[in-house]
């Protein structure tokens, strides 16, 4: 087990209702976990807790048995990287943006090693030709790739993607998800993500976590997904069809 969440509860302020209610699950290294649920079900809050942007109200989050509430922000950054939903960077070159991912290692000034690592990540992501470009001048898809490259440069064991495809067209969506999946698989990095599109989720996910009103209703592999489960979680009527061995979810 790498990421282990136990009885996680969270509320934004003392009298506010629980946004996360006793959520427990774990994710192995190299696995892709997809969190699914309606808007407001607690997906983003769950990610904020995992990333340490907020303090859990109850329960614990640990990584390789180490309680994350007890490690420094910098040490946590060595385990978990974040690819934000709306990527913003500031006017830096793509190279410097990706080099930023090395910050947990170099602290104040980057070294030769960090630069070499950055070049190799740029190469893997096919961004070498864009290295000297201002990252703000890139297209949405390229910026998303730069954000993912920065996360890989961080050499994390887990990457958190908050709705990574929100701002992308279909072609870019698939390209980026497949890239991320391939590289994460090669490096044995786990990915925790949320996706709106159930078919995308089915295409890339290994494990699925269904949230409703802050509670984890179901979790497991593809086999748990059924018409009834989707009705329960999303209040939506769908059919699931088999297309060349792949599960496809369609609206009724």
């Amino acid at each position, binding site marked *: 087990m790498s990421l282990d969440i136990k009885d996680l509860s969270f509320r934004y302020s003392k009298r506010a209702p629980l946004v996360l209610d006793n959520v427990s699950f774990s994710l192995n290294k190299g696995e892709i976990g997809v969190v699914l649920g309606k808007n407001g079900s607690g997906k983003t809050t769950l990610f904020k807790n995992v990333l340490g942007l907020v303090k859990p109200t109850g329960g614990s989050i640990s990584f390789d048995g180490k309680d994350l509430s007890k490690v420094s922000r910098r040490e946590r950054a060595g385990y978990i990287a974040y690819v934000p939903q709306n990527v913003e960077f500031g006017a*830096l070159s793509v190279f410097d943006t990706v080099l930023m991912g090395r910050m947990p290692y170099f602290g104040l000034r980057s070294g030769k090693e960090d630069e070499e690592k950055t070049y190799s990540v740029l190469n893997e992501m096919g961004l070498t030709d864009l290295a000297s470009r201002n990252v703000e001048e890139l297209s949405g898809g390229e910026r998303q790739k730069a954000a993912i490259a920065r996360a890989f440069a961080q050499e994390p064991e887990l990457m958190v993607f908050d709705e990574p495809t929100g701002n992308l067209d279909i072609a870019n969506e698939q390209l980026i998800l497949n890239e991320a999946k391939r590289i994460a698989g090669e490096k044995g990095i786990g990915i925790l993500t949320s996706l709106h599109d159930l078919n995308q989720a089915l295409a890339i996910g290994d494990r699925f976590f269904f949230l409703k009103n802050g509670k984890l209703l179901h979790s497991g592999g593809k086999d748990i997904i059924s018409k009834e489960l989707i009705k329960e979680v999303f209040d939506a009527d769908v059919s699931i069809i088999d297309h060349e061995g792949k599960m496809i979810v369609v609206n009724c």
Partner: protein
Amino acid sequence: MGDRSALLKDKHKKTAAIVILIVITVVLGFVCLFVGSSNMSLSECIYALFGNGSSAQIRIIRNIRIPRVLAAIIAGAGLSAAGLIMQTNLNNPMASPSTLGVSNAAVFGANLSIIAFAGGFLSTGNNLKNYTTGFNPYAASLMAFIFSTLSIILILGLCRLKSFRPGVVVLAGIAVGSLWTAATTILQFYATDVGLSAAVIWTFGDLGRATYKTDIIMALVIVAGIIFFMVMSWRFNALLSGEPAAKSLGVNVNRLRFVSMLLASLITAVCVSYLGMIGFVGIICPHVVKKLLGQDHRFTIPASVFAGSILLLLADTVSRSIGNGSALPVGAITSLLGAPFFLIIILFRKGDKA
């Protein structure tokens, strides 16, 4: 890997820009030594600089012009760097060194000293000599500094309780600033006409108040601040990606914001306390630099530092040249010179590197 050379070229270009700014600062610094109201010729100035010439000439160069030029370089650098850091910290292009209301507090402190306690201050080029020279010349500056520091502690303390979220800090700054302004207005309402004019004249920025002593104090605070900002360059870069991304890159965002806003505000406090209000340097210079060089703080911090020095040197020289014996308020000249240049940059470099 063809892009490695492009990257290197870009770095060299930015480094060259900084070197050019340094050279301009030094050259302009010397040129400014030779401009003034005493009608000394260039050769007389140079002789006096090396200790030859009449004692009056030596005194003018050594005790008036050198401290004044140094003050322009130091304060320009400090205000510009402080402005850049406030803009990054608060993720707000309108942020300036005095966003936390520091200047308003300093003005209140100085007004209190001048109006209520008839405290003195150093000044050049006004008709209030009897008012400004009779008492401790540092009284107004001291009070200004005490009040601006109090204000910084108040506002950062309040924000620490709640949060350092940019929105909260900016609004708290506006609120606290307006409190000081209100207090100043009431104070001025009860002032005598001489006291009032002295207080208003104090508020106009005036580099003529600088002495070696004040230059050294300003330099200590400003150099410490700039070194800290430079060391934290990467963290400020990370902050450009937003708070959540910066935190997940290992940056302790709250601590960074607290310490850097404290230093930026202290820089502003010493500058305003000793020299009066010098507006716009802290907004214009960082923006021009960002337009031309991008937002990498490893380059924008040093570039802003020297751009600030250059603007203030230029403004002070212009204010002394056209003031006909008495220097015009330098704060007004920084805007007069800077604003058109600034407008040209923002209007005509659109679509270029942001």
